[in-house]
């Protein structure tokens, strides 16, 4: 019996196989079974053995499906009506109506220019890759863009390594665990949450999630997630409907508006120039600043050292003082570092 051969002439580039699979699945109304796909579609058929097994080819097909879905292509599975669950009879297809961009959606040249600028906001990570793919799809509409918006280079940076795994968890609706270090606590506690939204508010990334341990909604600052984000095998009945991101931003805005700090700034200093621009009220050297998180504000005010004195609230005064005390202790005297063994060679 002849072995399945993989002659060099039969080698098909990955993109050709993926492209052929998309075309085949778009062209079929009733769908194709796995064995039909593997035995006929370009890139699979060359490696298909009539006598089976085709285990590695089947795994290849599974990965290709994931890749295609990753691009937002609606690849459907249709179970056999007579024998559901029999995956040999399961059919695959891409319904044309759900693949095509609806005809009524058009963009003006000015809108294309604005979207192109929006895509440059993300410099790295999945948001950048995805915006560029979206722009590619826009270009396929053949609309010429207005002159690019010049003189601007707006950027949002995502420094927190927890962002990507949390975004994956959002898309896959999975429950995750991560170690979370609250200020003032000496060690991180593991949180088990169902992510609902990722929002940037006043320059900080927040996770809005349902905390399974306390069975209530909680907001987490990504910068306080101090270890890996790990998916766990737990389920949580997610409420229907979206709008979590918008709600989360509204809640954060409300919190921001409700909390106010009173500080005194030294005239003519960096603190006075920069903080005065953000103040909601100003009277001489006394400023009022709104905030969402007392520790985030304390970190920021601490950078200004003696240029700022906090007058209200008490918690903020204490938080700023505690920071300076810690800084002085860590930097006075010789190298009294917590780990003097990590010396440079």
């Amino acid at each position, binding site marked *: 019996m002849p072995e399945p051969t993989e002659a060099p002439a039969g080698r098909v580039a990955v993109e050709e196989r993926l*492209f052929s699979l*998309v075309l*085949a699945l*778009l062209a079929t109304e009733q769908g194709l079974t796995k064995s039909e796909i593997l035995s006929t*579609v370009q890139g699979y058929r060359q490696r298909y053995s009539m006598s089976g097994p085709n285990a590695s080819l089947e795994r290849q097909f599974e990965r290709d499906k*994931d*890749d295609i879905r990753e*691009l*937002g*292509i609606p690849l459907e599975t249709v179970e056999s009506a007579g024998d559901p669950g029999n995956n040999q009879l399961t059919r695959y297809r891409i319904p044309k109506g759900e*693949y095509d*961009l*609806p005809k009524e959606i058009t963009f003006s040249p000015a809108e294309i220019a604005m979207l192109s*600028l929006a*895509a440059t*906001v993300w410099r790295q990570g999945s*948001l950048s890759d*995805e*915006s560029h*793919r*979206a722009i*590619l*799809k826009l*270009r*396929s509409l*053949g609309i010429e863009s207005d002159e690019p918006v*010049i003189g601007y280079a*707006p950027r949002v940076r995502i*420094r927190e*390594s927890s962002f990507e795994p949390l*975004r994956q968890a*959002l898309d896959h609706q999975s429950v995750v665990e991560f170690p979370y270090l609250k200020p003032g606590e000496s060690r991180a506690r593991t949180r088990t949450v169902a992510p609902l*939204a*990722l929002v*940037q508010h*006043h320059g900080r990334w927040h996770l809005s999630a349902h905390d399974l341990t306390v069975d209530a909604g909680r907001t987490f600052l990504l*910068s306080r997630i101090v270890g890996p984000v790990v998916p766990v095998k737990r389920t949580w009945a997610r409420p229907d409907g979206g709008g*979590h*991101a918008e709600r989360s*931003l509204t809640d954060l805005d409300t919190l921001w508006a409700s909390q106010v700090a009173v500080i005194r700034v030294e005239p003519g*200093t*960096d603190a006075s120039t*920069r903080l005065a621009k953000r103040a909601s009220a100003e009277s001489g050297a006394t400023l009022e600043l709104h905030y969402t998180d007392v520790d985030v504000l304390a970190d920021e005010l*601490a*950078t200004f*050292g*003696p240029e700022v004195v906090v007058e209200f609230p008490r918690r903020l005064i204490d938080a700023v*003082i505690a920071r*300076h*005390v810690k*800084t*002085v202790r*860590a*930097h*006075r005297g010789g*190298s009294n*570092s*917590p*780990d003097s063994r*990590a010396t440079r060679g």
Partner: protein
Amino acid sequence: MAKAPLHARDKLAFLLALVPYLMDHGHVSVADAAKHFGVDDEQIRESVRLIAVSGVPGETSSYQHEDLFDIDWDLFEDSDEIVITHLVAIDDSPRFSAREAAALIAGLQYLSSLPEQADRDVLGSLMSKLAAGSSGRPSEVAVGSSEVDSTLARIRDSVAAGHRIEFDYLNSRGGAEKRTVDPLRIQSLDQDWYLRGWDHVRQAVRTFRLDRMSGLVATQEPISHRAGEIAVPDSLFESSDTDLTVVVELPEDAIGMIADYVTTDPPVSGRNGRCRVTLHVAHHHGLKRLIAGLSGVVTVIGPDTARSSVADWAQAALDRYAGEIDAQ
């Protein structure tokens, strides 16, 4: 994790975008298509060759001629021009994926704080269009709006008009100076806005934080240095030879917080997930502010002058709370 390389997936996305474009245009040169998509000519040619031999298995399951795309080969080979003569399976642009739509929507939300984006309705309708053109509900990623310094709009006008600006600038050493600048580019990083421009006193490109500017005057004087003519480095944070070199210790997972200052020297790992890294900072004035804001996270190890400048800064702050320290 044997995923198809990202490369192949991106090539697939490109092929699926190129077909409807070529079809709509009927007859287009390789050069024009390359320009439209912002890719090189060879990528267009390679993709067209692949499209031209692709198709569906068809009735016979054997990729007969009528099941394949076809192009005018003579025109393609001789004149570098593309005409698709037979189409298979696709004729429209694909929808956005939920993640793609979400990425652009969040980008637009960020741009909505720009002065010329005052018309929120325009952005709102653009966002709804993206959502409607997406294959699933856009994922829940959002950027909140924020107030932007009012100087931004005025500087923006000067950039557009090509006019010089003057302002008082408090440098990070604490000194105030009058600066005369040809504004070239407005750049942002999250909540912070910067102007890149040609500084007439320093005779060099400089970066200014908008929130450190005051007394802005937009002159009618045309700029003498234009964005196209001089190199403006993309990175906001350039180190120079006069920088201080400082060794700090911090938890390994906190390196991202000081990534802008870290040199290329690899971190040296120590105990308990802590490590030491070398930083470049412009001067002690910048260092003490940076470290004071990362209290309990980052500790300066050396040199001693750097350690004491940080300690002095925090102590001076504590002195201002003299009456309240006893409790600590």
